């Protein structure tokens, strides 16, 4: 075309370029979506359908997976089941058709609740502490600031599981094993370094003249922070919160090691569903599907901030 279309041109990309880019994006989306779609579909299959070969794309959907996920069941003789009254719910009906009766609720919701409490709790703490620390590093002359920042980052340089044994022993001594508080503290400790680094970048970009103006206008530093810095840092805070939440929500290694009962989170719990009565893939898939929902909702709610956040403040306003 013309000479204006150089490497640095800000000219709109041509229609062909756009179309090719579009195709690549769609392809990539399909590739990443297939496993998710697979899980979602499996959660509505019957156990035989879920393991049939070749895999079934068209099948009769059933809620069996979800029923099995939420309940524990016991096997009974057909005569006993006949003798019962009419089924109380869809799940009752499905369960009876398999010659079983519902014995009680499963542990799925308690484990899910643990995950919610631990993931959101630690995310809140990590972002809260991270914001304050990042503000401090950004605005004050902290002695050895660079070394401290490096030290904070260095906690992320090895895989968390490398410290699993010491932490396991420590937690056993302190009575923090298998407690929600213990898991919140642990995930906060892991996430706070990420939070400090991400947020420092964002806060560095907010000119300090804004706070100074507020302080001259009669606000204390803390009030200026709340009224002037926080509103402008929301993008960064939202992006940081999502990163922290995704880590805490999906974390598996520590959860397996440190939780087994009352504080167990979903990731170590979901695989155990398989054991309860054979290869119950639909129940596992159902558990995974529901497990994905909070992150999905949170991400969709904050997607604008997240998109901007990923560019690390490069495109502000």
């Amino acid at each position: 075309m013309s000479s204006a279309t150089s490497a640095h041109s800000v000219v709109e990309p041509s229609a062909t370029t756009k179309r090719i880019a579009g195709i690549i994006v769609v392809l990539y989306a399909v590739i990443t979506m297939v496993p998710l779609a697979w899980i979602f579909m499996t959660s509505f299959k019957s156990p035989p359908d879920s393991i049939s070969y070749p895999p079934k794309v068209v099948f009769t959907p059933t809620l069996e997976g979800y029923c099995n996920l939420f309940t524990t069941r016991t096997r009974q003789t057909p005569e006993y089941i006949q003798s019962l009254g009419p089924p109380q719910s869809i799940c009752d009906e499905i369960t009876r058709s398999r010659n079983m009766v519902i014995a009680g609720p499963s542990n799925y919701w308690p484990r899910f609740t643990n995950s919610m409490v631990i993931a959101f709790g630690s995310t809140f703490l990590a972002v809260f502490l991270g914001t304050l620390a990042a503000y401090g590093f950004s605005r004050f002359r902290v002695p050895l600031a660079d070394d401290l920042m490096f030290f904070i980052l260095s906690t992320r340089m090895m895989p968390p599981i490398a410290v699993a044994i010491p932490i396991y022993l420590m937690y056993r001594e302190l009575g923090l094993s298998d407690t929600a508080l213990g898991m919140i503290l642990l995930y906060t400790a892991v996430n706070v370094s990420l939070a400090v680094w991400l947020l420092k970048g964002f806060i560095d970009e907010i000119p300090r003249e804004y706070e100074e103006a507020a302080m001259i206008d009669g606000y204390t530093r803390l009030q200026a922070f709340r009224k002037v810095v926080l509103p402008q840092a929301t993008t960064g805070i939202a992006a940081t919160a999502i990163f922290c939440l995704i880590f805490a929500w999906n974390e598996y290694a520590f959860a397996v090691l440190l939780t087994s009962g009352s504080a167990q989170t979903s990731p170590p719990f979901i695989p155990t569903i398989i054991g309860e009565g054979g290869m119950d893939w639909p129940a596992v898939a159902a558990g995974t599907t529901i497990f994905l929902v909070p992150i999905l909702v949170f991400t969709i709610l904050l997607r604008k901030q997240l998109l901007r956040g990923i560019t690390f403040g490069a495109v502000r306003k």
Partner: protein
Amino acid sequence: MAEVTLAGISKTFGQTGAVDNVSLTIRDGEFVVLLGPTGAGKTTTLRLIAGLEAPDAGRITIAGRDVAGAAPATRDVAFVFQQYSLYPHLTVYENLAFPLRSPARRLHDAEIDARVREVAKMVRIDHKLQNRSTRLSGGEMQRVAIGRALVRKPAIYLMDEPLSSLDAKLRAELRLELKRIQNELGATLLYVTHDQVEAMTMADRIGILAEGKLVQIGSPREIYSNPANLHVAARLGQPHINLLPQGLLPGCNAPAGTKTIGARTEHLEISASTPGNAEIDWIEHLGDQNHLHIKVGEHKLVTLADPYLAIQRGDRIDLKLRNPLYFDAGGQRLT
């Protein structure tokens, strides 16, 4: 409004000295302009008064009170920053109301509203009160920034090159407005700029800052016609003052020790004459006037001439001095 004094204020940042032993009194109701090139310590001086920096030495009093160690919020000053003036997350209205909503003031909403509208009218932004502050032109933003200082009645207004980011026409307009507003309010104002026209037109007194030192302070007229040294002389006057070696041109009676002669337009007399002692090298036509570039031997001078002066490039002229400024070898003025 109140009197503000600086006594022997110094501030260094690591190795760089930013402000060096500056003493200055800004009288109640006075408009003082600090004029200096970039890096002269203008911003630092304002930040010291506002309490955003602590001086290494010296005393600052505002309305008679020594403010050493006092937090910015308690000093009763208003500040217009060189840049980043408006809160991007607030509307124009909220930006103007922000200082009034501070916990230190606690005004009623009705009172705030009245004050915001009054000031908005004063800085002519009342038609855009509900706009996001990021959706304004540069000139409008600067009006709001000035307005945000004006909503308060502080002891002193500190303004850091508030007009420097604007185009020439707007600058001229706002210059007048600002002076008018300051007159109306009887405000005490310390204004910082590197633009000599702003200094000359607005100031009651001009202070010349160079490398952190206050070199001279006086009325615009004094500073212009009685500069203390070469540096001050070079800061004022358009075109720049011509610096010539003593003895180059006739017509002066230089005191002993004169090394350099400073000649502005009003110090030069031109008459057409052949052979003459100088030649017209170039003429710049500015419309209302001309810049004459004149060659005297090796030396070049620039001076103003009215456009009707019948003179052309290459003409020979006679150039004489009339009461120029004399400077010694160290650049100090001699009289």
